[in-house]
């Protein structure tokens, strides 16, 4: 079963599986791409130092969509992970390897995933585990191989909310090596577990419910009832810029990604060859060999979106729409404490179904996670039951740095 690209000899400690785009000193780190085959970082990412300090031991580096480019972990250069609940179905992506491994594991296991457009929540939802994507800036990105620098976040994944809360506490710390790291007071997020949610206001965006299939929608309605029984006040809200979020997210993410991936050219690390031809010929040859189809597609789109002549219409426009998406959420949080929705519109699709999808359809699968990713807000996916024996995820979203609230609700829901 392919969940890991690199297996590490187990030592004593709390086992943790790490997505392969997080740098681990002395252990191969590929970001799921052939172009980084054999790359062994000379340094540990800050989160790796933090989890080691907390007593964790790395059991392996997980397979993933190349550089995070995907929603189904099917763009993997080192093997596609299969959903433990149904091996003909996807684990979700791009942290599919982490989610699949945790879901399949019969013993205690934690995971470090990464999300740009929903890559922690999606696989958590499809594999029936818990995944938390912290507020942008809460967890250091130092040592995370970049997809989109303004949107990437590292987050904890595990079977239970409490484990996720514990792991978050270990990595939610200011890091001076990351200029986008926020100075916050470290806290123990497990203290939000076991608390009552009586009186807490929860909003459910109608646009999100309408995008889900009926069986998934029904599961969410069940979840609403469960939370209301525990004292939460659930109401309907509207997030009118929901549809605008996908194009805005993709344009921004891909523009940044196309610059982040420029460094991979057959020099200094990764895939290399004999130097034949001049530098442009060499770079083009290596990049064409080392990047998969989806990576090429995204690099091309991202390069296009920031070209003179198109930049205003795409890159700048997307950044303006981002402002509107952020405002949308801020308006909602004036009325509610937490936003609740289905994590994904469907259950994990079959690989045969995914093969038939056009690229734009794959992008649209992120419809429910793109807005919250774009807005840099924290979000938590918890298992909300099964449809056709496949897990369905419940998404909980709170305002900036209020991870405590979604942990509180998620934990209450779990119980």
């Amino acid at each position, binding site marked *: 079963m392919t969940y890991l690209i690199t297996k590490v000899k187990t030592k004593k400690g709390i086992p943790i599986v790490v997505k392969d785009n*997080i*740098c681990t000193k002395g252990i191969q*780190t590929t*970001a799921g791409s052939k172009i*980084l085959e054999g*790359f062994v*970082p*000379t*340094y540990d*990412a800050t989160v790796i130092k933090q989890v080691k300090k907390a007593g964790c031991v790395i059991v392996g580096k997980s397979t993933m969509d190349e550089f995070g480019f995907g929603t189904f972990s099917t763009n993997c250069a080192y093997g596609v992970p299969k959903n433990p609940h149904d091996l003909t179905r996807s684990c979700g992506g791009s942290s599919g390897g982490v989610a699949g491994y945790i879901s399949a594991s019969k013993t205690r296991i934690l995971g470090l995933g990464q999300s740009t457009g929903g890559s922690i929540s999606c696989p958590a939802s499809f594999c029936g585990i818990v995944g938390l994507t912290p507020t942008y800036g809460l967890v250091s*990105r*130092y*040592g*995370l*191989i*970049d997809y*989109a*620098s*303004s949107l990437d976040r590292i987050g904890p994944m595990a079977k239970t909310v409490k484990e996720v809360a514990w792991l978050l506490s270990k990595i939610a710390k200011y890091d*001076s*090596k*990351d*200029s*986008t790291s926020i100075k916050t007071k470290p806290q123990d997020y497990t203290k939000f577990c076991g608390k009552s949610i009586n009186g807490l206001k929860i909003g459910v965006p109608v646009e999100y419910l309408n995008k889900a299939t009926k069986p998934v929608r029904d599961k969410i309605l069940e979840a609403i009832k469960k939370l209301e029984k525990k004292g939460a006040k659930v109401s309907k809200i509207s997030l009118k810029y929901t549809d605008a979020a996908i194009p805005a997210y993709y344009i921004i993410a891909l*523009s*940044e990604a*196309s*610059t982040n991936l*420029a*460094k*991979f*050219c057959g*020099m*200094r*690390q990764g895939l290399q060859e004999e*130097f034949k031809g001049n*530098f*442009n010929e060499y*770079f083009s040859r290596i990049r064409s060999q080392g990047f998969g189809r989806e990576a090429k597609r995204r690099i091309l789109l991202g*390069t296009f979106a*920031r*070209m*003179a002549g198109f*930049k205003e219409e795409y*890159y700048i426009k997307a950044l303006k729409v981002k402002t509107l998406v952020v405002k949308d959420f801020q308006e909602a949080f004036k009325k509610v404490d937490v936003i609740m929705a289905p994590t994904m519109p469907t259950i994990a699709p079959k690989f045969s179904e995914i093969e038939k999808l056009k690229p734009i359809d794959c992008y649209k699968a992120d419809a429910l996670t793109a807005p919250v990713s774009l807005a840099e807000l924290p979000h938590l996916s918890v298992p909300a039951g099964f449809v056709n024996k496949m897990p369905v995820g419940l998404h909980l979203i709170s305002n900036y740095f209020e991870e405590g609230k979604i942990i509180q609700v998620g934990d209450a829901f779990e119980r």
Partner: protein
Amino acid sequence: MHLNAKIGLEIHVQLNTKSKLFCTCSTNLAKPNSHVCEVCLGMPGSKPVLNKKAVDFSVMLALALNCKVPKISRFDRKTYFYPDLPKNYQITQYNFPIAQKGYLQILNKKIQIRRIQIEEDPGAITYPYHIDVSKYSLIDYNRSGFPLCEVVTEPDFSSSKEVKKFLKMFISMIKHLGIYSSNNSFRVDTNVSIGRNPRVEIKNIGSIKDVVSAIEYEIYRQKFVLESGKKITQQTRRFAGSTTEAMREKETEEEYGHIIDPDLPPIVLTALHINQIKKKLPELPYQRAKRMFNQYKINKHQALAIVSEKELADFYEKVVKHIEPKFAAGWISTQLLKVLNYNNIYFSEINLTSQQFISFLKLIQAKEISDRAADLLLRELVLKPQNPKKLAEKLNLLNLTEDELSKLINIVLKKNKDSVDQYKKGKTKVLAFLIGQVIRESKGRADAKIVKELIMKKSFLY
């Protein structure tokens, strides 16, 4: 053919910080690839953190150049592919630079500064053999990530002379600011056009002399092109020692696709902060010249000439502790600078100490050496700095002793019996001629006053 030349400059100044712009590697010289880290090597996962000193230095330069410093400035990623660029993008400031719209006055002209931006240096490429035959390149990333301040002027220059004056004053200014030292690199790109013809850019020139040569050659070349009936094409050229040559056509047109660098939060400078920096600015060349004018009572031209190099200004102010300022200013701003210009070197390139120059001037004041001999002595002293008296002795430039002079006078008077007779008859004007003859015979090693005194003592004059 007389066509007006329009010249603009892009000056890249390496700032005098201890660590690099975005990482804590040292900026000192070292063996290849030994002052590098994951950040300046662009290793996957690394992130930049901005050096405060580089920002302060850039703001100081902006204020010294009378620029507007906007409240918010940001960094951009300029993406292009080259082996010396570890991330294949350079972190620079394209959309929101640290400063804009300033000027520097030279002679009677205000050269406008279009913008100032902070950016990182790439690594250094070399080749195992000549570039044409090497099958690969060799890269040292020690330089990668060095902090640069790029200053872009408007094309306000009309001659290489103006460019030379500007660059000299510019370097004096950045040295006075303390943001640059002779150890740091200094590179200039220049664009030259004549009449209404397209601009030609000449890239990567490393010294003022070379900039001047490149501009002069380029103006000549463009005029020649036009006179041959051909057209000037917009292109990028490289300086090749004394001429400019076309750079090989880039097969791929660069499309930089600038985006704001999301790894770096904006620099926000309040008016208060900028004022604090302004107050702490050290004395700048024009201020120093003004002060010297007032303090030492030297004239404006002398003062400006002296501050045109910081090392020279520091030198002067050490010399005047022992020598009368106007006297020292005269010798420095005319004779010394004349010797330097003749040899096409700058004061900062020679090792003449203030102590040596003080001794030199004292020789003149004590009349141990004539002005003319001092001129000759100075020419040698500049090229081989040493104890001036010893050098003068070696070169036979010191004035003759009274005995030697007396003997010489006897010889001269004997030779010129007629003139002596005329003097005895009362034609006192002949004395000047006799003094002149003595000085000539002494080969400039006599002071006219002393010669006159000695002649007057000669008994056979009476």
